[in-house]
């Protein structure tokens, strides 16, 4: 599951830092990234990797079920309504791990919009094979 910790927005991740998200085959809708790639339950957050600490290939290796890697800049994630911020969440096996924070006060319908906007703002760092 995604991390349940609830840090606040952390400006040590600059607005222009890329965040990488492994994209699964089931997250693809006609070749584009579905909002499901960013859908998390209330209290959960979206796992990403920091571009300043790893490469998209590292993300792909860490999540072998991925077929591609999406990228979104931290500033775009922060400016998405219902996103409470972006925060580092280093793990023992992944120091680059970070979180896009789902605002705890928002309901599912509001997060549906946020997830769609995050998906639209996400581009391919590594696209899936044709």
């Amino acid at each position, binding site marked *: *599951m*995604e991390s349940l910790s609830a840090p606040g927005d952390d400006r040590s991740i600059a607005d222009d830092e890329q965040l990488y998200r*492994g994209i*699964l085959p*089931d*997250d*693809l*809708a*006609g070749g*584009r990234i*579905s*909002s*499901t790639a960013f*859908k*998390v*339950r209330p209290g*959960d957050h979206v*796992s990403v990797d920091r571009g300043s600490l790893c490469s998209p290939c590292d993300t792909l290796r860490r*999540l*072998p*079920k*991925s077929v591609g890697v999406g990228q979104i800049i931290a500033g775009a994630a922060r400016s998405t309504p219902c996103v409470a911020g972006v925060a580092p969440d280093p793990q023992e096996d992944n120091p680059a791990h970070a979180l896009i924070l789902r605002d705890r006060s928002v*309901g*599912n*319908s*509001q997060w*549906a*919009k946020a997830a*769609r906007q995050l998906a639209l703002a996400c581009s391919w760092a590594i696209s899936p094979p044709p």
Partner: protein
Amino acid sequence: MSTLDLTIGPTPLTILVEQAFHDIGQCIDTIGPRARTAKKPGIGLPNGKSTTIRTVSEVRADGTDWIANTLPRLEHVAHLPGNWDGRGSPGTDQRIVEAAVSLLTSLRHYGVCGVPVPFLCPIAGGSLQFEWTSGGKHIEIEFVDDKSIVFLKEERTPQGASMESDEIPLSRIGKIMQLLDWFAAP
């Protein structure tokens, strides 16, 4: 036209679909010319009841072929194993699969036509989502649980984009039909 039997295999989902189509069979018969479907001999179900299997070509007679063509993908999502996402998500909640079948059954019952086959994506935590995109229109129907959905309706025009979303009971089938009618309209 090739014919694909809706029987997917000896799985719980198959039984669900068979039961669902059986349940609405009589209703479809009363719709009239829109539903010129032919019944095949019933087959036995584990509970001793018989059911009616229809084929894609038969379903096409009433324009709801998109529903039958959604089922193979639903079967895939229904059988995802635990940790399918590599992040520890459980497999798809079977109550949500049943709710999805129920929704498709209702939409077929009401003859919702002219809609493309949706993308069907699993959601971490055990849920799933139907998704349609065409031109500037986009619709998502996400199952929150087996009783409620979140819909997202998005329209992009040269003037800008608009988004509407809400969480509603699954029983509000009229609202879901309204969304799909909007999507299917030219």
